[in-house]
């Protein structure tokens, strides 16, 4: 910052015109100051360089590279030099029946996942946040309990649920259903059946992720002034009316943010699908997602160009969602 001279008023004027003050050598009393001030640009640049260089090298460059690769026919381990392909990879993704089938299926699965997870998980998180926004003894314990699955690596969550949803009649869910249906329920292959494969992924993902949204909403709830509730009570507002007219407006911004964040995160779903397809009997076709498709295309089929095109499409979707999120959230934060 600028103020080595407290005698001066109007620090803003000086901030905006640093070269003028710096050029005046007629201040022998403080020889060090103008020099140091001039060098702020150097220090600023030096301090930001490692992180910015890392980001450019490992995010910016590879991203540009993805766009370039998507215009070529690049195969790992192929002796042929990559051939320029133009928009062929994209055309194939959307129209070549062999390739577009799985890809469009993956897009559809992602969409299904998001359309179910975003409202369900947000509503569940809101319900939990409201329940936990009370001054009860041991409330902290309950909060950490609901938050706990968030720290579980997805690779592990997938394995636990693989057992719960196991297809044998000894699987946890199947035997529970067997017990409550008085023996009418037998073995059901939750992960393998195309009708329930995606639903299973949704359930375990919501279980793992809901605590995250809950904490964010809880923080939002705690910013609502208590007087609003007191005033509402004086007006004899019922609990439902308080929820509708005090709670919901009070966390509207947070709620929108949470929903948008969840939709971005939900497009990135990969770990649980990969783990369960590779060893858990998950129905591959019914549960493949765009990221799963990109990884298997690059890695199992060595088709890097095609995978890059998938990656670019994936990125465009996420960016659109993120930009909508910023648009929607910004005005609220500025109130």
């Amino acid at each position, binding site marked *: 910052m600028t103020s080595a001279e407290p005698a001066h008023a109007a620090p803003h004027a000086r901030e905006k015109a640093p070269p003028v003050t710096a050029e005046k050598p007629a201040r022998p009393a403080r020889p060090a100051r103008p020099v*140091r001030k001039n060098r702020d640009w150097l220090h600023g640049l030096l301090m930001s360089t490692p992180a910015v260089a890392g980001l450019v090298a490992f*995010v910016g460059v590879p991203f540009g590279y993805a766009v370039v690769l998507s215009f070529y026919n690049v195969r790992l381990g192929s002796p042929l030099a990559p051939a320029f392909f133009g928009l062929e990879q994209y055309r194939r993704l959307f129209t070549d029946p062999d390739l577009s089938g799985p890809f469009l299926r993956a897009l559809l699965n992602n969409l299904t996942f998001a359309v179910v997870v975003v409202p369900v998980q947000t509503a569940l998180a809101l319900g939990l946040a409201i329940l936990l926004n009370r001054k009860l003894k041991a409330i902290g314990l309950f909060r950490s309990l609901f938050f*706990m699955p968030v720290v579980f*690596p997805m690779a592990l969550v997938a*394995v636990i649920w693989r057992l719960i949803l196991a297809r044998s009649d000894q699987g946890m869910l199947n035997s529970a259903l067997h017990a409550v249906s008085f023996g009418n329920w037998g073995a059901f292959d939750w992960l393998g059946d195309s009708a329930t494969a995606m639903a299973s992924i949704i359930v375990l993902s919501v279980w793992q992720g809901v605590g995250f949204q809950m904490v*964010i909403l809880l923080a939002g709830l705690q910013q609502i002034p208590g007087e609003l509730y007191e005033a509402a009570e004086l007006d004899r507002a019922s609990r439902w009316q308080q929820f509708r007219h005090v709670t919901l407006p009070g966390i509207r911004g947070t709620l929108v943010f949470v929903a948008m*964040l969840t939709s971005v995160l939900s497009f990135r779903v990969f770990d649980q699908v990969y783990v369960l397809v590779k060893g*858990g009997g998950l129905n591959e076709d019914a549960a493949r997602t765009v990221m799963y498709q990109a990884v298997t295309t690059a890695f199992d089929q060595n088709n890097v160009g095609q*995978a890059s095109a998938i990656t670019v499409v994936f990125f465009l979707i996420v960016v659109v969602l993120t930009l909508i999120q910023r648009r929607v959230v910004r005005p609220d934060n500025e109130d």
Partner: protein
Amino acid sequence: MSIHTGLTRTPLRRFLDYAVLSVLAFIFALPVIYLFMGSLKPSDEVLNGLSGFLPTHLSFDNYTAVLDSLNSDSTGYFWRFMGISLLLSFVVVTGGLFINSMAAYGLSRLKWRGRNAVFTLVLLLLLVPFESVAVPLFYMFNDQRNTLFIQAIPFIANAFSVYQFHTFFRSIPPSIEEAARLDGAGPWRTFFAIIVPMSKPAFASVAILTFLIQWGSFLWPVLMVSDPSVRPLPLEMSVFQAQLPPDWGQILAFGVLLVLPVLIVFAFFQRWFVQGVASSAVKG
């Protein structure tokens, strides 16, 4: 009756609150209970209907078996996987705290021409999810596969961490730095001696979030690591659970060992954890 304060609650209402919370919490905790219980049971009793929850025949045999069976040569496999995960997390967290906080300071508190452009660049890169650069990175660093280096380096610089630090530093009153500058401290000393010590909450929450993400990191190892000698724990977990025939007791014991470090960190630093998540969102 106030929803908010709970001060005027009747004992009945309070009882109902606890009852609802306990039932929900129990249902919610079932998978975790199952994990811990199963890890202590003989393998044939894990997948055995609802009795999988019953605490019968509990022992630590699965744990010793995991540590032994993955100890097939002198290197000590399990501890090796664990060590690799710990090492990678350590490098990514400490390296990340260092360079990302420094960059955020340079971008938020020092005035220089072009800093807005650089910060805009960081915000643009924040838009790019790792998933969308995974494939080109994999292609670019194909000759670095199965190295420790490539598992850590891409994750040290982190746009989201820069953003979080940036938000925090901007809330520090300028007068504090001005005083330091008056005393003759340059930007580096001001940063390391004044700003860093007073930003502990920001460092703690960024550290915890980074650790959490790095510890569970899966996509990148899937692409880059095939050699067990440099394999991190979550990837080994997915390999271990796909074995045939599956040994459920051991798989769950492995799972407990995988999650234990984060649970310990979580237990000790919960407050920062939750603050970090919440503040990133409310300010985001």
